[in-house]
């Protein structure tokens, strides 16, 4: 099946695998590297469960071929907890009961962790807007929003460096309001 050698750099470790160029990054992370925290729901970019970081940017791993990630740093959910200790966002989601079955949770953490670093003081509307790319079929989102808000408060308290915002201007846009029906 036209396999080629591919070298990936995942969570700071190098992995040499042989895969077909058509193999999705999500499948290689799960099947060839064995990191099953990255979940696969829809495989067309809609559900967000497969979100990882590529060069620190949240990215759908189902919309990227593993071979495209060569030369880039991939980070998965497994890298966030340190020494068995949940990170701030994970802990807040846990405390606020922001997950039930947990299928959506890795994608939500990878999305909102990046988002909070870039948008240190999000409003509830900002949080909901950023969350729109992650489907959760269990929680009804209320507790996820509460968890993200809690994490944002902790970030703000420790703000000395915790929020290394990549963009120094507020990206909150008041324009183009979407209608909800």
């Amino acid at each position, binding site marked *: *099946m*036209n396999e*080629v050698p591919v070298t990936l750099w995942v969570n700071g470790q190098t992995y040499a695998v042989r895969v*077909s*160029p*058509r193999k*999705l990054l999500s*499948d290689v992370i799960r099947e060839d590297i064995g990191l099953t925290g990255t979940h696969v729901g829809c*495989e*067309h*970019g809609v559900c*967000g469960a497969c*979100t990882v970081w590529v060069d620190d*940017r*949240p*990215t*759908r791993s*189902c*919309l*990227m*071929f593993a*071979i*495209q990630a060569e030369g880039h740093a991939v980070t998965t959910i497994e890298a966030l907890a340190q020494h068995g200790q949940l990170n701030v966002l994970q802990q807040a989601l846990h405390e606020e009961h922001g997950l039930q079955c947990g299928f959506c949770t890795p994608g939500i953490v990878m*999305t909102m962790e*990046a*988002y909070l670093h870039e948008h240190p003081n999000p409003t509830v509307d900002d949080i*909901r*807007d*950023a969350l*729109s*790319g*992650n489907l959760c079929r269990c929680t009804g989102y209320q507790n996820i929003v509460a968890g993200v808000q809690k994490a944002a408060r902790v970030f703000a308290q420790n703000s000395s460096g915790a929020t290394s915002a990549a*963009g120094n*201007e507020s*990206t909150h*846009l008041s*324009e*183009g*309001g*979407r*209608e*909800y*029906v």
Partner: protein
Amino acid sequence: MKPAIFTYRRPATLHEALKLLEETGDEGKVIAGGQSLVPMMNMRLARPEYLVDINDLDDLRYIHPFEEGIDIGSLTRHDELERSAILRRLCPIVPTAAHFIGHYAIRQRGTIGGSMAHADPAAELPLLAVLLDATLTIASLDNTRSQTAREFFLSMYTTDLQPNEILTAVRFPVIPPDSGWSFKEFSRRAGDFALVSAACTMQLNSSGSVEQLHLALGGADLIPISVDASIASFIGERPDARWRQAVAKAALNDLEPMSDVHASTQDRLDWLALTVDQVLTQSSLRANVEIGEQASHTPEEEKL
């Protein structure tokens, strides 16, 4: 939901990429952000034999202001448009609309070039390109040509791009500071493709009458359309509520948006009337008003 087999190429230069496309002909396909192409490949709606990955072509990632416009490299990501200080100052409708493309993670990866080339009839950036009549730069191995956005989009998912060509840049004109502008879209959920959208620029003279008016609609036809010709006769009047209603009526005259599982033709027409009214209102409020948070200077160029 797995793509068919293909051969992968990752050229390091534009020249190399164009050479590959020349060789692969109809079987080759460019991949930029992959946010439209990979879903189609996963569903086997697209089965390219060769995938030419242009993500290493860093020369295609830039936002350069010049006298009358801003050149944007085709590989510039939606998120980069959204955060650009240059665009916020010189063409603020672009970052404003870019925020409505898909979701946060989609915008980290999707590119302006991919958006134009994909030509979804509901997409935000093609709508702005038609509104502002942006100029597209298109390269092939032995030629570089320019084309206006109003000629580039041919039909749903169909543009004038040939299989051996790469879109390299999109040039937007500057929106003058005293010009009003607005973008609005209507969708069922945040992040979904818009069902309808509208974008407008407007200039008023010293007595408050409309001096210049551009209006473009998305979701009204197979491609984003400019309705400037239908509304030209309304220039010279004051933009009050009756005027807005008359403009919306003229703009939608003769249009027959598609009817599908998401919305009927009549729904789309009703929402278009609503969004047109909103963009006209907001543009007239913005016209002549100094924009509060203008940066003290515009960076020469942005490294992305």
